[in-house]
C-alpha cells in the first residue's frame, strides 16, 4: 500500500471507532496575513476516485462516474472560489521538462506525506504528538516557491476524495441490516483538502471531510460535498 492508502485506511478505521464526527478544520499558525481582493489559487491534480459497491460488497471502479465526478467537483470548486473572489488556475504537468516534472512530483509526494501526518497526529487522538500541543504548523518548506513562480500564485489547493456508494442490490442489504441493528457500512465519502501558502510552504488550512451521504455523480450533491469540504476556507 502506498502512503495514501495507509492514510485513508486509517481514516476508515478511525471512522469505525469514532462517532460520526463533524468536519473539523485546522488553520496554520501563521494565519493569512492579508486577504487580497482576488487571491490566485493553483488547483493541484485532484485525487478523486469513485467506486460502486456491488451486492457482494466488492468495490467496482467506475471510469465514467469518476470522470463525471471530476468535472462536477472542478465546476463546484470554481463556483465556491468565485464566491470567495478567488481565481482558480489548474496545474498542468510540465510535459516538456522532465526535471521540472520531477521537482513538482517531489512536492506533491511531500504534500501527501504531510497530509498523512496531519491525519494521523491531529485527527486520531491516541496518536497525538505531545510536543506539538495545539500547534498546527506543518508545511512544504521554501521549495514550494517553484510552483508559486511558475504559476504566479500565492496559494495551492490540494484535494483528495474517495466515494463508494451502493448499487441497487447493496442498498437493499443495507436497509435490512440497519433495520435489525447491524450497521453495515454503506455509502460514504472520505476526503480532505489543504491550502498551502506557496511562498513559505505552510499548510495554512486543512480540512477533513466525512459524511455518510453524498453523490458526486450529480452536480448538486457534488456542489454540496465541495462546499462542505471548503467550508471555512480562509480566502
Amino acid at each position, binding site marked *: 500500500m502506498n502512503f495514501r492508502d495507509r492514510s485513508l485506511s486509517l481514516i476508515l478505521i478511525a471512522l469505525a471507532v469514532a462517532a460520526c464526527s463533524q468536519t473539523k478544520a485546522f488553520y496554520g499558525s501563521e494565519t493569512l496575513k492579508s486577504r487580497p481582493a482576488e487571491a490566485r489559487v493553483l488547483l493541484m491534480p485532484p485525487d478523486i476516485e469513485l467506486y460502486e459497491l456491488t451486492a457482494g460488497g466488492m468495490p467496482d471502479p467506475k471510469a465514467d462516474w469518476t470522470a463525471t465526478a471530476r468535472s462536477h467537483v472542478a465546476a463546484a470548486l470554481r463556483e465556491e472560489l468565485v464566491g470567495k473572489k478567488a481565481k482558480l488556475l489548474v496545474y498542468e504537468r510540465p510535459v516538456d521538462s522532465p526535471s521540472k516534472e520531477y521537482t513538482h512530483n*517531489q512536492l506533491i*509526494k*511531500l504534500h501527501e506525506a504531510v497530509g498523512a501526518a496531519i491525519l494521523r497526529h491531529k485527527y486520531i487522538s*491516541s496518536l497525538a504528538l505531545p510536543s506539538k500541543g495545539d500547534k498546527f504548523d506543518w508545511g*512544504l518548506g521554501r521549495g514550494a516557491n517553484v510552483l508559486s513562480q511558475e504559476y504566479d500564485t500565492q496559494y495551492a489547493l490540494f484535494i483528495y476524495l474517495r466515494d463508494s456508494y451502493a448499487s441497487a442490490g447493496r442498498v437493499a442489504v443495507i436497509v435490512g441490516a440497519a433495520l435489525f441493528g447491524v450497521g453495515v457500512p454503506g455509502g460514504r465519502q472520505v476526503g480532505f483538502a489543504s491550502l498551502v501558502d506557496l511562498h513559505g510552504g505552510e499548510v495554512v488550512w486543512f480540512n477533513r471531510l466525512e459524511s455518510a451521504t453524498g453523490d458526486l455523480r450529480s452536480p448538486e450533491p457534488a456542489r454540496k460535498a465541495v462546499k462542505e469540504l471548503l467550508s471555512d476556507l480562509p480566502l
Partner: protein
Amino acid sequence: MKRRVTPFALPLFLCGCAAYSLVEAKRTAIGDLYTVDPQISWSSTSQGKTDTWTVDGPFLQAVHFVKGLEDGEVLFKGGDEEKRPKFKKHMTPSEIMEFVVDSLSAIGAQDVQTVNLRPERFGDVPGFRFEMIFTSNEGLEKQGLVIGTIMKEQLHLIIYAGTRAHYYPKHKEHVERMIQSISLKGK
C-alpha cells in the same frame, strides 16, 4: 497477520501501540548508557530497543536511538526477520554501515547512497559517522545521518532521517548539538 511496525514506515494497520510521550528540553537518559540534551521538546515512542523522537511525525523526520543491539539481532523488528541482515559483534564500521543500508533497503528504502564514512567521537569514546540519501518506498527523497559505536560488544546508534525537502534540515542543527552533548554514564 504479521504486524510490521518500523521507525521508517507507518504501520500497515493501527496497532494502538504507538502512543507518544513528551520529551522535554532537559538532559534525558537514553537507555543505561548515556544522556543527551534534547535542545527542544520532542514526542517520543518506543519499539524494542529503539526509541524514536519526532517533532512533525516519524516519516517526516525522526531521531532513532538504537540502544545496545546484540550479536545476531536485526535493526528493524517485524516482518520476516530471517532474511534481514544481523549485527555481528566483530563488525567494522564499514560493515555496520552496510548493515544499516541493507536493513533500510529491506523495509522499503530505495537507492541508498552513503557518504563520507569517518571516525567520530561518540561522547568521549571512539565511534564512527556517515551520511546518507535514499528514496522512500513511494519515491520521496529522504536524507539521513548515522553516528554510532560498539561498547561491550553492543551496538549503539543514533540515526536522524527525514524528508530531504524541509523536514531533515528543519531540526538537523538540534540533532548535531544533541550529538555533541552525549555524556556517557558511570565511567
